[in-house]
């Protein structure tokens, strides 16, 4: 199949990746960064929850508050990574707006930084999204007309918190009616609500994550935030043909036909083992059926859907490249 030329997110510069816990959103964010970097582009992958998930994913030492190259992509692309710490982001911000690096340190000593980043409502999120926005809009050192990164991927908070996290202005507008925090929040929200941003939701084909995806997409839309693709992660590959799938679901697999086939392959098994394999097959069929039901629910969202297969082994670097290739093949990025 020909890949569609105008992939849906061609103009997007900030890819926000969210998803319910346990769906593999960090893995998807990492794979997306590699996919975007393919063909010689420069991409920044950021995390905002201080978990060092990127370091685990790319098998490198814990990331400092500094942009580091973590991977190469096919065709000369480069993936950089940054673990954004709200405290450091605040100090950055103080320096940027007030030229107050030393004062920042004093604030830290008095516990103000702690206060501002963990307690002041909305402040933490303003700082985190603010830093991401800065990376999206930063110019290259050598050529001021060029942007330093072709795209930025954010491994964002989970679906349940994403709208509030991105919709910082709403809260800050209520709280900080004046002051530079307000101004900062406004400029961040302008980027987040523009066509340059897409919020992708990662899910697996199970009831709760799919429900959260549907709810999350509705919340994002209601807040005027641009929903990108639904990324179905760890999808089972159906292993049975239509007839066998139907028979297995109904508990009517032809056991003698199966036994004959096993015999032809010189695969020696006891009857009890054949029965065990029949049970496993019935459960596989049940799972495949459940996944197709959930898939139908997702389709009602009317969003582009990308499906990534369940890899037999834990996702290592090789697995990430495979998932990245899958994203390109399915036209999520071009």
């Amino acid at each position, binding site marked *: 199949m020909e890949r569609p030329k105008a992939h849906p997110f061609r103009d997007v510069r900030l890819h926000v990746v969210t998803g319910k816990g346990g769906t593999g959103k960090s893995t998807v964010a990492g794979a997306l960064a590699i996919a975007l970097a393919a063909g010689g582009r420069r991409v920044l992958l950021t995390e905002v929850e201080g978990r060092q998930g990127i370091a685990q994913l790319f098998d490198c030492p814990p990331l400092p508050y500094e942009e580091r190259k973590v991977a190469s992509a096919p065709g000369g692309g480069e993936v950089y990574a940054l673990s954004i710490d709200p405290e450091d982001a605040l100090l950055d911000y103080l320096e940027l707006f007030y030229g107050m690096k030393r004062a920042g340190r004093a604030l830290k000593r008095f516990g*103000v930084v702690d206060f501002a980043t963990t307690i002041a409502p909305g402040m933490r999120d303003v700082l985190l999204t603010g830093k991401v926005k800065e990376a999206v809009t930063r110019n290259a050192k050598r050529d001021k007309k060029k942007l330093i990164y072709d795209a930025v991927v954010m491994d964002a908070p989970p679906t349940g918190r994403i709208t509030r996290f991105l919709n910082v202005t709403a809260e800050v507008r209520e709280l900080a009616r004046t*002051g530079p925090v307000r101004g900062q929040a406004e400029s961040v929200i302008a980027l987040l609500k523009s066509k340059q941003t897409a919020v992708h939701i990662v899910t697996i084909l*199970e009831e*709760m994550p799919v429900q959260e995806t549907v709810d999350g997409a509705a919340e994002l839309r209601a807040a005027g935030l641009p929903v990108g693709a639904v990324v179905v992660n760890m999808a089972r590959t159906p292993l049975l043909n239509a007839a066998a799938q139907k028979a297995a679901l109904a508990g009517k697999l032809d056991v003698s036909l199966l036994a004959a086939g096993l015999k032809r392959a010189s695969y020696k098994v006891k009857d009890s083992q054949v029965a065990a394999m029949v049970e496993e*097959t019935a459960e596989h069929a049940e799972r495949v059926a459940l996944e197709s039901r959930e898939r139908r629910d997702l389709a009602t969202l009317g969003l582009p859907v990308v499906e990534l297969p369940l890899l037999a082994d834990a996702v290592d670097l090789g697995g990430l490249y495979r998932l990245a290739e899958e994203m390109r093949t399915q036209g999520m990025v071009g």
Partner: protein
Amino acid sequence: MSSPKSVPRLEIDTVLDTARIIVCCGSGGVGKTTTAAALALRAAERGRSVVVLTIDPARRLAQSMGLTELDNTPRAVKGVDEAEGGHLDAMMLDMKRTFDEIVVAHSTPERADKILENPFYQSLSSSFSGTQEYMAMEKLGQLKDDGQWELVVVDTPPTRSALDFLDAPQSLARFLDGRLLRLLVAPAKAGGRAYMKVLSAGFLTFARIFTKIIGAQTLQDVSQFVAALETMFGGFRQRAEETYRLLAAPGTAFVVVSAPEPAALREASYFVDRLAADKMPLAGLVLNRVTRSKAPELPAERALAAAEELEGSDSDPLAASVLRVHAERVAMATRQRKLAERFTRAHPEVPQAEITALAGDVHDLKGLRAVGAELAEGSLALRDAG
């Protein structure tokens, strides 16, 4: 290879029959809520009077437990077998309401109104990242104090890190009760001259910067909030400390829930370490969604080779696909076993119990009952076979 046989078994029925508080914790998406509900149901059906506090149950599970009204009070769960004399109540946490109730309970009506109307309070009570954790712990304390239940089972909020909920109550209390806050909003008043001396000139600078950063209006809201809260100061810290003590007391049992996935097990590992460091009573690990083969003695490689042979001749598509299903299943079970063994090697003393992966979600009492039974009766011998 280390033998899983040496893993001590989590004797869940002993815990259910003796504990006064059970806290289910673990990273998001591992099945904490389901595990908490299954444990509570089993304890009730074994004859105890139980209340379960859930945070964010799946819709159908909530319905099956009668959790349709969000009124922040426990309600009896219908369909529980009460033959042994037990009883089960369930409730869903309403974070904001719990906070409002504390405010009302600890101040005059006039003060309470002032606090409840304050924009800073409204934001704090509904969005501060530690509020949910704090309120879960607060509600736990209330349910315990109430005295009508022998056992309180709590599910913990889906925090980014499993550790947050141990710290969040204290950090919120520290803030609300904090001298820093008093200093910021009323430097002349708070603590008098002694503070000013200690902080010297630097203080004025930082107060100015702080005002600049968050805006004067915000500071005014905070100031009003703090003034209204004056009577409650100290109370917050005291409550947080009480809850913390309650958690560390004998009679509390922490159950760490995980799935056999690298990230979830890593969190579980941290959590076990953290509980040990804080001297919190850990009952054990529940490993949820474990894949098992029903014929684990038939290796994946041979099944795959046979499948390929059949596919080459295209003679027996059914046998070939059944072999592939089996191979996939064995490979998945093996991978999960390896991950679980990594945890076991790091924490050989932590008792474990397992729940087999199901094709669908648990969404009724029957399903919860089955989960409870497997936790109690399912033997670790199964895992030797798997």
